[in-house]
């Protein structure tokens, strides 16, 4: 690895993020001393006094040490605003639940303006990572993937039961309903409810009203296995997930079966698919991120979605890919 001592900034979520630590360890080995900012510390106002302002020449200044310009920045993760749950609990019962919900969503929006402001005003030569707002639109990414000649499961966005019925018949009565943004979690104290990708039955549809909110339906692909890739510049690291064997994980492999985890092994994608993915990423101006694919029983590879946050820990660990080293290399060379 090249030895040099450039200013490197790593933006993470919290102090205990294994992937962040691993990359920092590779950098330390080569005499680099990366600076670090944790998104959680921005939120955690009780233990971190933080002030941002603008100097005479319109540069962002702060007491967080992340001023001036950096050689490279890795935006690994940011806060998930989980501290707002605490804030939510801090209201006493005299404040109506409705008002609390309003305040929390206002705070969330404000924090995300601040996040955007901070992240857009730190300067660097090389930037790795992604702004989910830019790259996280599932619908855009599906469209773009198709433009790059990747297969995608067909979908519709509709408010009409009649259109849905047509779509349902067209795809052999096998379609799924899926979140468009992030997974919806609802904590009922005793149980945590979360949305997974689910198959829709004829009975489900018959219970729908004739008109409903614009919703996203997708053709269900019978799969041989799933593929999770991590892409870094022009390298594609792939892992096959045999979720099909297990009924529990058949439609959504995130319903982990802890007794008997899905088999995860290194995979080698056809070069033409790798090329299409790399082109798709360069079109999005993304240097790194994760992609979910399906290998259908029809032997085709279907693009599902991009996770621009790019959690790569599992892929690296299961397949012994040296991704941590490669990221460190990218940041300091």
């Amino acid at each position, binding site marked *: 690895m090249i030895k040099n001592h450039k200013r490197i900034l790593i933006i993470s979520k919290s102090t205990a993020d294994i992937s962040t630590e691993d990359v920092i*360890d590779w950098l330390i080995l080569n005499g680099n001393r990366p600076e670090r900012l944790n998104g959680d510390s921005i939120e955690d106002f009780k233990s971190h006094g933080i002030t941002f302002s603008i100097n005479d020449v319109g540069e962002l200044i702060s007491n967080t040490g992340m001023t001036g310009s950096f050689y490279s920045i890795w935006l690994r993760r940011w806060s998930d605003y989980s501290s707002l749950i605490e804030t939510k609990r801090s209201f006493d019962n005299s404040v109506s639940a409705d008002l609390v919900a309003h305040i929390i969503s206002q705070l969330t929006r404000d924090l995300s303006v601040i996040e955007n402001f901070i992240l857009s005003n730190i300067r660097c030569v090389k930037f790795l990572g992604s702004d989910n707002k830019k790259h996280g639109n599932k619908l855009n990414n599906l469209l773009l993937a198709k433009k790059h000649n990747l297969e995608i499961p067909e979908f519709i966005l509709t408010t009409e039961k009649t259109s849905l019925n047509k779509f349902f018949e067209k795809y052999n009565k096998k379609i799924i309903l899926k979140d468009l943004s992030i997974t919806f979690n609802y904590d009922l104290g005793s149980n945590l409810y979360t949305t997974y990708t689910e198959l829709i039955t004829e009975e489900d549809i018959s219970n729908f009203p004739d008109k409903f909110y614009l919703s996203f339906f997708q053709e269900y692909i019978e799969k041989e296995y799933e593929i999770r890739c991590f892409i870094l510049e022009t390298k594609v690291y792939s892992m096959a997930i*045999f979720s099909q064997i297990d009924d529990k994980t058949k439609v959504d492999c995130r319903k982990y079966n802890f007794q008997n*985890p899905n088999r995860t*092994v290194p995979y080698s994608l056809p070069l033409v698919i790798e090329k299409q993915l790399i082109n798709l990423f360069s079109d999005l101006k993304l240097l790194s991120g994760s992609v979910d694919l399906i290998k259908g029983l029809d032997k085709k590879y279907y693009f599902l979605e991009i996770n621009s946050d790019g959690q790569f820990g599992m892929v690296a660990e299961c397949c*012994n890919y040296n991704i941590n080293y490669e990221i460190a290399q990218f940041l300091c060379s």
Partner: protein
Amino acid sequence: MNTNFYFTLFSNCIPVKGAVRSIICDLQRGSYLFISNDIVDVLASCETMPIFKILDYYRNINEVELEILFNQLIELNLGHYCENPDRFPKINTQFNSPYEILDCIIELSDCNLKYIDNIFESLTILGCQTIELRTYSHFSLEKIEIFLSKLNLTRIRNVELIVCHSQLETSNAFEAILKKYPIIETLVIHSADIDNCKTIGASNLIFTTQIITSSSCCGNISKEDFKINLPFYLHGIKNNTCLYKKISIKANGDITNCPSLEKTFGSVIELSLEQALNTTGFKELWSIKKDDINICKVCEFRYICSDCRAFLNDVYEKPFKCSYDPYSPSFHNLS
């Protein structure tokens, strides 16, 4: 069965051949399965030949038998039929880490307490990830806490604490320690009156009646100590799993490969751990892998065995405290 297809084991299910029998190590699920050596040979051929060629090559196996075998392995989720085995490459065996030292064992003592800052500074420079702190006889909790309080300034991620039971400390005192230092994965209290395990948060608190009076209590090889996971396997095929990237500090401050080994490479009183590490001979035993050791090299458990390079007559001999004979193949009682 479509005989144009291939049958392959998943790349994290690795057959290891022994003298008279073999195992498939399931490195993802941490388990193993006994199979015959003949089947290992057939499975090795399966990597490069489609099923019809296998049937052609092994004239003594008929299609029905082969299908039964494959379906059993599929049922156990160890392998699968596939059209193109090139899509499923083997796991790369290069295993690199940015740490000069992975494990450290410290025998807690007043001497080591005196040099504690130097020790932890060195461990931070070396990138040490895992530490084991031990006491063979009573050592006060206050002093143990001084060691624990230094941990958050280092890069250590896993901590195991092994202390001697004494009438002076209650179980509550140990629980309080685990609550205060969640970095401790396991706290073992030996020489206790009872055998008992409980979890405090994410940590394990283990009371054992076993008496650990010195470092000579180490080095037992048993099925219970098998480590079946990918990083361990990758280390084991290239290096010595007992001593590779390990450093130890004895109660008197002597720096050794392992507390059970006599040879010292200086003392914390006059040397830093980095200096000791770079002394001639310190890394000598690191490269002795199982495939180099007599008897171990034909043992089907060789890549999941914890090994021991301390209790033996010769460094290329199987551990003294291992009772397994791969030729019989069985565990014998040690006399």
